[in-house]
């Protein structure tokens, strides 16, 4: 692996390139119901990442022979739009996108009661409008909110965050620059209320203690992300309640 040694990711004060402390998350914004035609939708901003997720279904499966007789077919499509990165990205799905679609699907599947909707399909479309490191985590945050917004039966929401490594220091929620020049990246997705991990990947070298520390760091951040997700889901209905001016 070629690495530019002159890139300094942590300065003397322990601050990172964008001024964050090692265990600080980028600002997160979650919105639901942004698309009218989708059954459920969500928009997520995680730092510079901008992601839209749309959920359709449960609906009829096309082509028909793909339908599963005992549960719903969960299909995810993760796509980075051509203008989402500095150089134009070809709109054709890359190997990376195909893999991320699979990874996101498998991170979401344990949270959904798929057996409640046999012979149907649940389609999740994720489009990255702007990418800056950690789009898979932003996508999982968006997709799980969109699924809940569509009224699909779920065990819990899924929230995700990446823990990175710069030198010997573990840092939370790495951005594009740190992803490129850092020493490790470990995206973690969890069901916060249930307390189970649905996705954990890693590149880089970690000691067992570091893995433990990373999971602890991520689960703290995931609790905060979860609160944002809850707020986004509830706000639409609370707004109607305020409009009517009726309090309980």
């Amino acid at each position, binding site marked *: 692996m070629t690495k530019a040694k002159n890139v300094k990711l942590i300065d003397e004060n322990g601050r990172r390139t964008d001024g964050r402390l090692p265990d600080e998350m980028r600002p997160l914004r979650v919105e639901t119901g942004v698309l009218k035609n989708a*059954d*459920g939708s969500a928009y997520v901003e995680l730092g510079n990442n901008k992601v839209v997720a749309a959920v359709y*279904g*449960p*609906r*009829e499966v096309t082509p028909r022979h793909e339908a599963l*007789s005992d549960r719903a077919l969960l299909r995810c499509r993760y796509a980075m739009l051509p203008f989402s990165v500095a150089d134009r990205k070809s709109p054709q799905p890359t190997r990376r996108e195909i893999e991320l679609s699979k990874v996101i699907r498998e991170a979401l599947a344990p*949270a959904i*009661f798929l057996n409640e*909707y*046999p*012979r*149907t399909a649940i389609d999740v479309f994720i489009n990255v409008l702007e990418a800056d490191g950690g789009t898979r985590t932003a996508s999982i945050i968006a997709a799980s909110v969109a699924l*809940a*917004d*569509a*009224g*699909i*039966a*779920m*065990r*819990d*929401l899924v929230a995700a965050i990446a823990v990175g490594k710069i030198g010997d220091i573990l840092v939370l929620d790495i951005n594009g620059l740190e992803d490129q020049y850092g020493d490790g990246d470990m995206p973690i997705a969890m*069901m*916060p*209320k*249930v307390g189970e991990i649905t996705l954990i990947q890693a590149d880089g070298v970690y000691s067992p203690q570091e893995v433990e520390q990373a999971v602890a760091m991520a689960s703290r951040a995931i609790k905060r992300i979860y609160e944002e997700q*809850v707020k986004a*889901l*509830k706000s639409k*209905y*609370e707004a*109607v*309640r305020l409009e*009517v001016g*009726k309090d*309980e």
Partner: protein
Amino acid sequence: MTLYVKDRQIVIPGDPIGEQGKFSIEGHVYRVNKKFFSKVLGVVYIDPDRKIVRVIPLKGKYIPVEGHRVVGKVVEVGLTNWIVDINSPYEAILPVSEVTSKPVNISRNELAKILDEGDLILAKVVSFDYTKDPVISIKESKLGKIPKGSLVEISPQKVARIIGRKGSMVSLIEEMLGVRLIVGQNGRIVVVGDDPLKEEIAVLAIKKIEAEAHITGLTDRIREFIESRLRE
């Protein structure tokens, strides 16, 4: 008390509702050991008299239930049956035997003469068990083709509010506007009236009920809404 929620509280998937005890917890919940959790984004309704806690989803697709009355659209005319769209992931089948008890000679009597593509029908779900598509029937009285009216589509979860307690909301709208409502459990409602203006007000009222279904005092707001619209 072993309840973690208040009446009319909005819950999201994974929210704890309560523990098994004095109250029976129903609706869209799942159980882990003795604790109940919400499965959906929904509202909690607590009935303190009957000791029932119910989680009703705010959104979602219609899943057919035997005995439900649904408003369907004919999408395909087959040789011995019709395929009907009932606003659900599952398409319904309407066999000839559930339409008429008279023998139909297929070679001479085209099924399209009885019901054609695009026709709106009020039907009853006869059977549905997830392994096969639901079978519907229009053989009972009051069921059958809907010749005219304006169709409103709402979330199927809100139908209960449109009907109201023992049909109070439906009769409120029907009496105030002189229209007739054909309510399908699948979220389709047909407003039949002579006055197009009153029909429109009824449609708007239904939309208002859908938007504000999770807030108390709905009936009074709808009555006010219709009164103010009628004055205009």
